[in-house]
């Protein structure tokens, strides 16, 4: 019989030249994808703009002026015009990026964490636990996402926290479903069986053998929800369920400028264009990640 006898001296493992790992390949493939890289740069620019809004914005986004209401694009001092209260549109758009990005990323991220835990557990443990969990998930899945978000926000009442909560609840079921289905596939792989045969407990197997193989696909799916989340969050604000004035937020700006479409139509349409550009950049970035990470489906 063989045995490992540990010597008193510390064991030195001579390092070996590692093969280029999975992520090196992902990065190499991603770099080649011009559209995805471009979208990534736009997203980066928007994030930087939001973070440094105080330095980038030319004016105070909340300072109103009754004399300069609804100025057209190109007015001196108001490069993108002025809104219904005479506030500088450019500054409001720059500051508005903060909340819109926040509402795009944060609910998806929280839902990613909870949805992954629920889905991976259901997929790995299977059986009755899986049935009960996935049936509950199916109930939420029975609502179109817009309807669910509005139902929850409508019941909870307006406000950022409630919007955040509603959107998180909206995104947990779809993420849990994807997580469950990829985990079920991985669980039946022989390497998971081999890990069980080596006596490892469920948590160790999930940590070492399951997560590394399921988090990628779940993550890619989650990134594709960021644009949905942004659009929904702005939609809630548009209905008056999200942020309250005078906070600059793209959906709310669109709402308050709705009546101005007869006076300054293109100024009124600007916040929506900002949502559109951000959302399409996130979608293209997500598509690029999907092909670079070689995720099927």
């Amino acid at each position, binding site marked *: 019989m063989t045995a490992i006898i*540990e010597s008193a001296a510390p064991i030195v493992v001579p390092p070996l030249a590692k093969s280029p790992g999975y992520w090196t390949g992902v990065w190499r493939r991603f770099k080649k994808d011009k559209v995805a890289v471009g979208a990534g740069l736009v997203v980066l620019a928007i994030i930087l703009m939001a973070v440094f809004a105080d330095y980038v914005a030319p004016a105070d986004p909340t300072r109103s002026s009754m004399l300069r209401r609804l100025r057209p694009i190109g007015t001196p001092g108001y490069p993108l015009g002025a809104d219904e209260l005479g506030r500088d549109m450019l500054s409001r758009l720059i500051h508005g990026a903060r909340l819109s990005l926040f509402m795009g990323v944060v609910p998806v991220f929280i839902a990613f964490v909870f949805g992954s835990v629920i889905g991976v557990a259901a997929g790995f443990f299977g059986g009755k636990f899986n049935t009960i969990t996935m049936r509950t998930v199916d109930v939420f899945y029975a609502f179109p996402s817009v309807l669910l978000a509005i139902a929850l926000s409508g019941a909870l009442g307006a406000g950022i926290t409630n919007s955040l909560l509603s959107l998180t609840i909206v995104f947990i079921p779809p993420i849990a479903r994807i997580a469950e289905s990829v985990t079920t596939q991985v669980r039946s792989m022989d390497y998971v069986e081999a890990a069980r045969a080596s006596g490892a407990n469920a948590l160790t197997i999930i940590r070492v053998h399951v997560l590394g193989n399921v988090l990628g696909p779940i993550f890619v799916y989650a990134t594709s929800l960021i644009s949905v989340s942004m659009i929904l969050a702005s939609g809630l604000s548009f209905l008056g369920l999200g942020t309250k004035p005078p906070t600059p937020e793209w959906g709310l700006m669109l709402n308050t400028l709705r009546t101005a479409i007869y006076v300054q139509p293109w100024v009124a349409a600007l916040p929506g264009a900002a949502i559109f550009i951000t959302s399409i950049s996130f979608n293209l970035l997500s598509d690029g990640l999907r092909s670079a990470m070689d995720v099927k489906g």
Partner: protein
Amino acid sequence: MALETHPDRGGPGTPLLQAKTLTKHFPLGGGAVVRAVDGVDFAVMKGETLGVVGESGCGKSTTARVVMQLIPQDKGEMLFDGEIVGGKDLTLKEYRRQAQMVFQDSYASLNPRLTIEDSIAFGPTVHGVSKAAAILRARDLLQRVGLDPARFAARYPHELSGGQRQRVNIARALALGPRLVILDEAVSALDKSVEAQVLNLLADLREEFGLTYIFISHDLNVVRFISDRVMVMYLGEVVEIGPVEELYNDPRHPYTKALLSAMPSMDPDNRTMEAPLTGDPPNPINPPEGCRFHPRCPQAQTVCSKVKPALVVTASEDGTRRAACHMEIPGSGHSRAPSLEAAA
């Protein structure tokens, strides 16, 4: 912390693993049940290789998974070197250090995100070996299975060929220092030339580490090459078991005969003209009454469809050969059965 050696409790020449009436049924819903493994009894002696053969669907792989305890049996128990597997003297975790398994699909049985050495080192770390010691052991084992650690240890599975991957899987199985290794169609997916190399490696490792093998395959030639004894399974049951050469030269069960006659032979003088298997293909969902082989058996008689034949000693004085056929049971009622007087 280090892996301790496993003392040989029963001494050489005693069974390493005894399976007693192992049973595994899979409910299908609607009352139907797949009788994948149905009351299987066998023993594997220390240092021997027990071959397991049978058509696909006969329960070979389910037997392997139950023996490995990847799926729990419904009935029956296993003794490992005299101790109940999963009992208080031999916990499941401890048993899994002493019994390991190699799977058929060399790619699916390696985590694509781990390097080769990390995959091999995983088992020992689970049992408390330090990461560094486990990695060193992994590299040592790679050397022993014929892969240069400097070239292969830090590679990923997709960079290796099927034969190389299967060597890695063997190294992974050996990493815990097991006494029993279950090889479930471990060479079946390999090219013939690679298969031969891996078979030789397995034979060498058995000598080097004093291993005991359960070798499952549908390839009768390969089983003959590596096994000491052979067990033939049909629809979840053992129909015949015995030393390999005796069984191959003088099969007693009609199913074994049919299997062997269907085996391609290199020797033109040795080709049988006997009819290959006919009749209904075996279906483990609704196995026939009596002897499960009787609908396809050329010698079937009334008794065969009524009474299930026991696995009885046959054709040998020392009791090493057994078969489950009414033609081997004295006074069974089959016209070709030996008479009771002759037996007495």
